[in-house]
């Protein structure tokens, strides 16, 4: 079975040139960086906060913070990874505000003894996404990812949706590589387990009365 490939690095040199121009005061260079990454930051923010208003605020605050602190960006890592770290922190902070009774930290390691063991091992229909129309599919995927603990969906969105490497994800979240791998495994298995309810062969619409 061929492996899932990470999207890989892209135009790092060009990115660095834009960062350096922005540092010299070229605001249009910074706007290019905003245009390049605003979609990604919004997706990450929406995955973590699960709230549209918060996601909009995160996009604005993350880019503004990046601009205000551009001087402190060391250029040893990728600008995008640095920006993602700012965005994740902003998003987790928003989430914390909404859940004052419960603290949310990327360090929290939600674990039960058997949560990595799949419970439901039914196979899926051959083209599961075709069982539903686009809107229904999005609703299912949204609802399912929302059910994951914030720490799991953060790792999942960075690694699997945005295509950051495991090392970049660890860097952005200030976690160790084994911690990223452990969360990613459990996030993937929990999503798979929950999606089986919708995509499993038994839930195929053609089998329903």
């Amino acid at each position, binding site marked *: *079975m*061929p*492996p*899932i*490939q*990470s999207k890989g690095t892209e135009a790092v040199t060009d990115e660095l040139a834009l960062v350096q121009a922005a540092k010299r*005061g070229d*605001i249009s260079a*910074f*706007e290019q960086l*905003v*245009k390049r990454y*605003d*979609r990604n930051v*919004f*997706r990450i923010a*929406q*995955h973590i906060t699960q709230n549209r208003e918060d*996601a*909009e605020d995160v*996009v*604005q605050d993350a*880019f*503004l913070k990046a*601009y*205000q602190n551009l001087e402190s960006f060391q250029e040893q890592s990728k600008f995008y990874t640095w920006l993602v770290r700012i965005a994740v922190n902003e998003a987790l902070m928003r989430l914390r505000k909404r859940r004052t009774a419960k603290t949310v930290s990327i360090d929290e390691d939600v674990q039960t003894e058997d949560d*990595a*063991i*799949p419970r439901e*091992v*039914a*196979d*899926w229909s051959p083209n*599961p*996404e075709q069982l539903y129309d686009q809107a229904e*599919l*999005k609703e299912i*995927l*949204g609802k399912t*990812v929302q059910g994951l603990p914030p720490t799991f969906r953060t790792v*999942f969105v960075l690694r*699997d*949706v945005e*295509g950051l490497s*495991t090392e970049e994800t660890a860097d952005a979240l200030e976690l160790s590589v084994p911690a990223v*791998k452990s969360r*990613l*495994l459990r996030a*993937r*298995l929990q*999503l*798979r387990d929950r*999606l*089986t309810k919708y*995509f499993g062969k038994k839930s195929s619409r053609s089998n329903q009365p």
Partner: protein
Amino acid sequence: MKCSQFLQELTDYLDGVIDTKTRAELEDHLQWCHNCYVVVSTTKRTIEIYRDSKLYEIPDDLRNRLRSAIMSKCAAHKKSPDKKT
């Protein structure tokens, strides 16, 4: 190899970052363990479906509105960097 050991290696296996010897052991396990085969294929599909879903795409009008808000705050900060924008 037990299924629990297989699952511990699942992430590296799906990401293609595994040594040849372990890969061979995992693939040998997949030959006879239907459950793990199903877990591998459906987990892979899970990742692909999310990656292709365009879930949480930002609409163009919102994107433009946010960008212009960001840029005007940046411009204000550039003018008076000490002030909180």
